[in-house]
């Protein structure tokens, strides 16, 4: 089993530091792909904060299953998923994934797969708070449709 580092946390994380550490692993690793999701402001710039709710227990379980599926399909040597919950400000890092593999194609594909599955299968819910009030973010049909790519 390859090293899976799955963290669900309220605390912020340092994306640069995580990427640096992840890229320093030794072994059959020739490529690292990382992705970071960030709290996006509204077009009018009115977002005060975002709150992310999750389902403790199921979240960790779902993320582990998704990472294990990726590891079974592609030659990845390491995988990190960090996802925050709780209140966040515009520009804050919400989550990241990192994959390491001997060659880049597997690292890219695995990271893309992780993101598609994480969006629709891991129990997180986003709520946007603006000066107009609070609103739950609707799931996009395109996110569900993206799963059929795999």
């Amino acid at each position: 089993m390859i090293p899976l580092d799955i963290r669900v946390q309220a605390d912020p994380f340092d994306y640069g530091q995580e990427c640096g550490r992840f890229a320093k692993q030794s072994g059959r690793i020739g490529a690292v792909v990382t992705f970071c999701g960030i709290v996006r402001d509204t077009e009018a710039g009115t977002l005060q904060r975002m709150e992310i709710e999750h389902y403790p227990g199921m979240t960790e379980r779902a993320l582990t299953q998704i990472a294990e599926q990726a590891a079974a399909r592609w030659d990845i040597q390491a995988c990190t998923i960090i996802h925050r919950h709780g209140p966040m400000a515009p520009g804050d890092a919400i989550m990241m994934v990192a994959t390491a593999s001997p060659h880049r194609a597997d690292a890219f594909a695995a990271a893309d797969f992780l993101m598609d599955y994480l969006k629709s299968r891991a129990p997180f819910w986003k709520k946007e708070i603006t000066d107009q009030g609070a609103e739950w973010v609707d799931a996009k049909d395109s996110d569900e449709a993206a799963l059929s790519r795999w």
Partner: protein
Amino acid sequence: MKRDILYFAWLRERVGLPRETIETDATTVAELVSELAAREDRYALAFSDPGALRVALDQELTDFSAALGDAREIAFFPPMTGG
């Protein structure tokens, strides 16, 4: 049988609580939803469009036709929006 029912996101807000333990004879998710929706207006409103909801039995996603079996924890929530 006693089951823990969990609600998340806007469903939790509409029902007005995050979890409760209920005694139910329902054998499938769909039966449980009908039973819950018949309880009070806030439940009826929360479950008015089950097609817009997702369900997990003991933390595994499933569908509304699934048998409850021995599941201890049944969670209802809107489609997920992580990432």
